[in-house]
């Protein structure tokens, strides 16, 4: 039978606030165990929470960037459960009145763009971390009280691939607007998925399972793929899907039951009496809205229109806000956006990758890159020379004019000078000359290369080409 897959994601993102959500402790990752703690985040008797305004602001910012409506009168609730990493044995979260609701994200699928609905975004506190050792278990509460947002999608995804695209897009937006560093490896972005299948054409949802513990995009796609197949085989074999919570094991590439519905928690939610309702004014929402930068999708569209870049280039340049800003800074110094794009994508990203340098650590400046493009376009230097100049600019941060001058790289268009070199190269490479004459066009490229090398990159390649052809046809 053919089945339709229904997927919804619940994504937790740690907010990049300096302090925790209900106290003034640092929310920095790591640290000696239990050093980022106070009576409030440890839930000591008598302590009271106080909400971090910045966490609310970041959540609202995420809500606006994800096209949500913002709840003007929101409130916190208690979710009660016993677990050693939960200091108060309840988590202060939101239930009936989440901060943001009814948004969407647009993804690019094979069949064109698709909107994935967002049901709600709420704020809550993170729990501590358990460490199991030989003699027992230890708890580190440094992470307890770090602010989180939970972004709950609608069950709008129809394949594991769509789920991955959604998560990638969500990550890029949250990271872009600066509310979360979204480091999946440090657990600051975590994803649970609900998945069910139903016979094609059926309206009713099938029984869903929940998969937890997927810590990469690849794992998410694989786990959902595995679960889709598992459910399909179950149904085709006449079995039924149980409403389980399952764990994804990355090494075995399988899901395992964590708990079944019979053992599901009754969280006994009720309004948190220690915190007053959160009220959000229109002015504040407007202010937060104004702090949201241009988002990746909009930026990409603008790059294509404004700079006439191919989609591929625009995609790469807008993959990070810093890179996009760097590009736009370069373009202030030259009219040739495409050449700037080429230099950044081919040379700069390669060197950054090789040397492990981030944008903020670059010695090379946008102004110098603009200048370099202009030097090539004005034919002051050849593109071969430009590569050398770029390498030196990258390592030293020197001005390209100075490099060109110091190393004598100014392009030479003097036909006599070039002809002299051409004749020398031809006499030294008789085999290639013969090859060319026997119809091997590739030999020409080789000879041009030799001429450029002989001239130390100074020869104007167009002229070198022309003279070479002239001499060879003699």
């Amino acid at each position: 039978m053919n089945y339709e897959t229904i997927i919804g994601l619940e994504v937790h993102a740690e907010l990049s606030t300096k302090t925790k959500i209900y106290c003034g402790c640092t929310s920095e990752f790591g640290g000696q165990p239990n050093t980022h703690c106070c009576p409030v985040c440890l839930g000591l008797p008598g302590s009271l929470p106080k909400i971090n305004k910045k966490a609310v602001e970041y959540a609202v910012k995420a809500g606006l960037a994800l096209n949500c409506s913002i709840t003007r009168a929101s409130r916190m609730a208690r979710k009660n459960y016993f677990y050693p990493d939960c200091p108060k044995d309840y988590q202060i979260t939101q239930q009936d009145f989440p901060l943001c609701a009814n948004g969407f994200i647009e993804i690019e699928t094979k069949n064109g763009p698709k909107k994935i609905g967002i049901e709600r975004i709420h704020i809550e506190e993170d729990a501590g971390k358990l460490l199991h050792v030989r003699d027992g278990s230890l708890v580190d509460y440094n992470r307890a009280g770090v602010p989180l947002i939970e972004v709950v999608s609608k069950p709008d995804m129809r394949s594991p691939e769509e789920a991955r695209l959604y998560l990638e897009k969500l990550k890029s937006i949250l990271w872009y607007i600066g509310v979360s560093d979204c480091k999946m490896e440090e657990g600051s972005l975590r994803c649970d998925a609900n998945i069910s299948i139903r016979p094609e054409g059926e309206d009713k949802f099938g029984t869903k399972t929940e998969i937890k513990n997927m810590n990469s995009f690849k794992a998410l796609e694989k786990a959902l793929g595995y679960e889709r197949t598992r459910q399909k085989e179950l149904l085709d074999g006449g079995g039924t899907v149980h409403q389980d919570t399952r764990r994804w094991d990355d090494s075995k590439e399988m899901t395992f039951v964590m708990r079944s519905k019979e053992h599901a928690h009754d969280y006994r939610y009720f309004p948190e009496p220690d915190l007053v309702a959160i009220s959000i004014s229109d002015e504040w929402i407007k202010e937060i809205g104004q702090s949201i930068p241009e988002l990746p999708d909009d930026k990409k569209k603008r790059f294509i229109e404004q700079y006439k870049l191919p989609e591929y280039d625009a995609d790469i340049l807008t993959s990070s806000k810093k890179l996009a800003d760097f590009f736009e800074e370069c373009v202030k110094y030259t009219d040739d956006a495409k050449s700037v794009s080429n230099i950044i994508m081919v040379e700069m990203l390669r060197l950054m990758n090789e040397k492990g340098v981030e944008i903020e650590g670059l010695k090379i400046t946008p102004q110098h890159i603009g200048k370099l493009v202009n030097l090539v376009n004005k034919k002051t230097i050849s593109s071969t020379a430009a590569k050398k100049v770029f390498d030196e600019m990258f390592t030293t941060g020197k001005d390209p004019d100075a490099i060109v001058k110091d190393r004598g790289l100014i392009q030479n268009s003097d036909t006599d000078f070039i002809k002299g070199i051409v004749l020398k190269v031809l006499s030294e490479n008789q085999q290639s000359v013969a090859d060319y004459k026997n119809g091997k066009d590739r030999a020409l490229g080789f000879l041009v290369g030799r001429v450029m090398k002989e001239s130390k990159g100074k020869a104007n390649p167009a002229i070198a080409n022309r003279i070479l052809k002239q001499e060879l046809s003699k």
Partner: protein
Amino acid sequence: MYTIHELHEKLKNKDLSAKEIASMYIKRIEEQDGIIGAYLEKNFENALNDAQKVDERISKGEEIKDVEGIPAAIKDNICTNRVKTTCASKMLENFIPPYDATVIGDLKKDGALLLGKTNMDEFAMGSSTENSAFKLVRNPWDTECVPGGSSGGSAAAVASGEAAFALGSDTGGSIRQPASFCGLVGIKPTYGLVSRYGLVAFASSLDQIGAFTKDVEDMAVVLNSIAGYDEKDSTSYKMDKKDYRKALGGDVKGMKIGIPAEYFKEGISSDVKSSVLDAAKVFESLGAEVVDISLPYTEYALAVYYILASAEASSNLARFDGIRYGYRSKKFEDSIDIYINSRTEGFGDEVKRRIMLGTYVLSAGYYDAYYNKALKVRTLVKQDFENAFKKCDILISPTSPTVAFKIGEKINDPLSMYMSDVCTVPINIAGICALSLPCGMSSNLPVGMQLIGNYFEEEKLLKAGYAYQMNTDWHKMNPELRGGK
């Protein structure tokens, strides 16, 4: 037995030094407390050291604050830095908080001497202080009787002269009922007036810290120290500090005092009823106007209270799980055993009863029938008072239906125990303020009346209470105790 303002005069006039005052109270505790049982933890050395500092300030001619050098007792559910805070529970038998509650910080800043921590019903659940995991408290007026609860230790300490004033907490009457049983002035301030930071929570939306004093003037002095906005408590009300002593004096002519019919129905003892109605006549004779008022939702208040308070308690007490601090059972194989066995062995019966009730009313399938319904009735109880305060300035009622009962009399009958809070509970549900003060005697035990005020109108209560005490002597009576008055 001295009031705060009497001691303050003596300090100022150098009739007594702070050290002499502290020693006098310490001696009293040593003589009496073996019988009364008010204190769980004594902190005499610190109190004497602090007294020394006060004396130094006086000798330098510096001006001293109203509570400076005055010995106080603190209910043992209010956190004190580096001093045990047990909530009279085996669960927290050895818990030493690393911080002070905001009210403790306030009292320390104002120079009060903290003599020690007082006994109570475990986690403030109870109306007789018989639920303490450690020992009984006896009523100084009759040692066969309970002092009331849950702040019974604080009440008994002040009534027996073992402290000049004491702090307590009031979730459903836990200050006013023992104040009434022990012949003291007790206040439940408006929710949000006094910071709850550092008060070990029982029911967060109802809890409020308040005080026991000998008279109304003293109450104004203590409120001046502990009332005010605290940024650490998000339910704390943002307003400028008031001087409550300014509310004292002046006449009550024209003040409208409501008598809510529902508080004088069956179940209220005739002596209590007549004492309170006599007090109303005193107000009338002072020129106040007494009007009849109805608060129709009163009959539901007790039910609402036990649903909401238990629900919040079940959640607030979850943290006592044997993992981080406090009692841990020695019998366990895994973490589930730690929770179950630690809580089974660490909590007393009344606490367990309320945790179970609270867990039930919050559970899926029952939430709407109980918790949510209770929230709606809570709104109706509030509206009752809002309507009443459109017609009068304050209300007058009994504090408790009876005078102090015998030890053991109600301990096996939870419902009859809960009934002793029937007059006080609605005030916590609405979040308004109320003052209990002595207004008579019945079988040699004090009778208390309750003055109820609108939100943040403590001044009206103090003004009326002060006028009453200027014209009556009930507050000047003291119990006869071994060791003399």
